[in-house]
C-alpha cells in the first residue's frame, strides 16, 4: 500500500461523496433544458440535503429500530461501493475487500434494507414500493451479473480495478460482446436508479412510483441520507459504466501522481457526457407500465447473455 494508492482511494471517495449530488443536479438540468423548461439550479440537490439535515426528524410511533437503522446501512453500502469502483485510478487498497460480484451483493444489501424499512411502518404505499423494487431488482441483478461476467471473461479477473486496468492498457480492439453488454448495462442503470422507462424520479403520482414510494415515511436527516444515497447510487453506476466500457484516462498501476490528477477532469468530462446522454434517453422514452418492466429487463438480460455467447464463440 503506497502513499499514492491511499491518495487515490481518498480522492475517489471524496469525489464520489461530493460530486454525486452535483451529477444528479446536472442530469435534472439537462432534462429541464431538453423539455423546454427553465432549469433548476445545478446545486439544488445540495441545498435540499442541507435543508433536510437542519430539520427535526419525525418517526412514526410504530417504527422499529430497523427503520432508523436503514438509512445508515443504505448510505454506508453506497459509500462502500464507491470505494471499490475505479473512477480515477486502479491502485485502490480497498479493492481486496470485494470484487465485482460482491459489488452486486453490496447493492443488493442496500436494496433489501430499503425495502424492509419501507414495509416496516406498514403503510400501503411503502409496501407497494418495496414489492415493485424487489421485482425490478431480481430481474436487474442477473443482467448486471452477465455484464460483469463478460468483462471478467475478457480480462480474466473479477476484480473491478484489474478489469479496468486490463481494458485500458490493451490495444484498441472492437469487442461486439462489450457493445452488447454496454446496452444491457444502460438498461440496468435506468431500471436500478428509478429512471424513466421504469420509474419517474420526478413524480409524486402514487400509482406509478417505485423509489419515491419507499421514502414517503422518512423525514429530515434520514431522508437526507436516503436521497444522498440515491445520488451516490447513480454516480456509482455511472462510474461502473466508465470502468467497464470507457476505461481510458484512468490512472493505471505504473503511472505517477500526474496521471491521477489528469484523470480528474477526464472523469468530469465523462460525467457531463453521460449525464446528458441519460437525460436524452429519459426525454426520448415514455414510462412503461409496471408490468412491462419484466419485458424491458428481459431484453437487458438477453443482451447480456448474447454478449456472453458471442464472447465464448467468436472470442470477440
Amino acid at each position, binding site marked *: 500500500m503506497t502513499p499514492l494508492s491511499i491518495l487515490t482511494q481518498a480522492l475517489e471517495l471524496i469525489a464520489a461523496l461530493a460530486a454525486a449530488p452535483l451529477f444528479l443536479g446536472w442530469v435534472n438540468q439537462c432534462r429541464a433544458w431538453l423539455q423546454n423548461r427553465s432549469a433548476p439550479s445545478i446545486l439544488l440537490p445540495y441545498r435540499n440535503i442541507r435543508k433536510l439535515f437542519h430539520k427535526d426528524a419525525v418517526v412514526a410511533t410504530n417504527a422499529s429500530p430497523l427503520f432508523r437503522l436503514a438509512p445508515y446501512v443504505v448510505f454506508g453500502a453506497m459509500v462502500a461501493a464507491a470505494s471499490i469502483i475505479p473512477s480515477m485510478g486502479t491502485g485502490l487498497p480497498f479493492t481486496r475487500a470485494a470484487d465485482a460480484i460482491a459489488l452486486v451483493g453490496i447493492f443488493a444489501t442496500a436494496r433489501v434494507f430499503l425495502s424492509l424499512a419501507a414495509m416496516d411502518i406498514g403503510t400501503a404505499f411503502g409496501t407497494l414500493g418495496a414489492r415493485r423494487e424487489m421485482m425490478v431488482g431480481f430481474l436487474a441483478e442477473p443482467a448486471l451479473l452477465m455484464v460483469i461476467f463478460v468483462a471478467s471473461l475478457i480480462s480474466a479477473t473479477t476484480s473491478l480495478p484489474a478489469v479496468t486496468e486490463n481494458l485500458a492498457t490493451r490495444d484498441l480492439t*472492437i469487442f461486439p460482446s462489450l457493445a452488447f453488454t454496454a446496452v444491457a448495462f444502460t438498461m440496468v442503470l435506468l431500471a436500478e436508479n428509478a429512471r424513466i422507462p421504469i420509474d419517474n424520479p420526478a413524480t409524486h403520482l402514487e400509482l406509478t412510483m417505485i423509489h419515491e414510494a419507499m421514502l414517503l415515511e422518512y423525514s429530515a436527516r434520514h431522508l437526507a441520507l436516503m436521497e444522498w444515497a440515491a445520488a451516490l447510487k447513480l454516480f456509482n453506476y455511472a462510474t461502473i459504466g466508465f470502468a467497464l466500457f470507457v476505461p481510458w484516462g484512468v490512472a493505471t498501476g505504473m503511472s505517477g501522481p500526474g496521471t491521477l490528477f489528469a484523470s480528474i477532469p477526464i472523469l468530469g468530462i465523462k460525467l457531463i457526457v453521460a449525464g446528458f446522454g441519460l437525460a436524452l434517453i429519459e426525454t426520448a422514452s415514455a414510462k412503461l407500465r409496471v408490468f412491462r418492466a419484466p419485458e424491458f429487463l428481459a431484453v437487458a438480460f*438477453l443482451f447480456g447473455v*448474447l454478449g456472453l*455467447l*458471442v464472447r465464448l*464463440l*467468436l*472470442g*470477440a
Partner: protein
Amino acid sequence: MQNIPFDLQLLNLCAALFLLLSFAMLAQRRVVSLVGLLAMQGTLLLIATVLLAWRTGENHLFISAALTLGLKVLLLPWILYRLIRRLNVYWDTEPLLNIPGTMLIGVLVVVFSFGLAQPISALASTATRSSIGIAVAVVLLSFLTMITRRKAMSQVIGFLSMENGLFFGAMSATYGMPMIVEFGVALDILVAVLVLGIFFFQIREQFDSLDLHHLESLKETAPDTGRKLSGEEK
C-alpha cells in the same frame, strides 16, 4: 486473440449484429418494421460479403455481394412493402408465446446451435469459421420466428431471414457457394416471394384475413358451422 486483424474484427462485429437482428425480428410485432429489419439484415450480409471478398481475394464473392444488394437489400423489401400496403396488414396479432418467453427460448436455441456448430467449425479451415455457429443460430431463430407467428406475412419474412442465415453460413464455412447455386437460390427466392404474394391475395379472398390458423382445418366447412355442430353434440 490479442492480434485479431482489423477486418476480421469487423467481420466478427457483422456476425454479432446479424445475430442481434434475428433477436430483434423475434421480438418485433409490427410487420412493417420486420421488413425494415430484413433489409438491415441484407445490408449486413452485403457488408460481410464485401469484407470477405476483399480479404480473401475471391472475386466471385463480389458478384454475390452485388446479387445481395440488388435482391435482398432493395428488391425484396420493396416488394414486401408494396404487398403490405396493398393488403393493409401493418400489425401481426399477438404471437403464440409472449415476447420474453420467446426470447428465452431463443437464447436456448443459440446455445444449442453454438454447441452444434463447434465440431463443424473445428473441421473448417476458413478464417471466419467461428461464425458458423452464428449462422446456424440465425437459421434456427428465423425458424422460431416462423413458428410463433400467425400471419402469413411474418412467416414469409421469417423464411427470407432463414435464407439469409444459410447464405451467411455458406460464406463463413466455405467462402460462398458455387456461382450457379447462388444464382439458382436467388432466382428461387425471388419467384417464391412473387408466388407467395399471389397466394396472400388468394388467402385473403378466401378467409378475409391472412391468419394461417384458418388453413389448418381440412374440410371445406366454414369454421363457424363447425362450432355449431359441436354445440349440437353437447
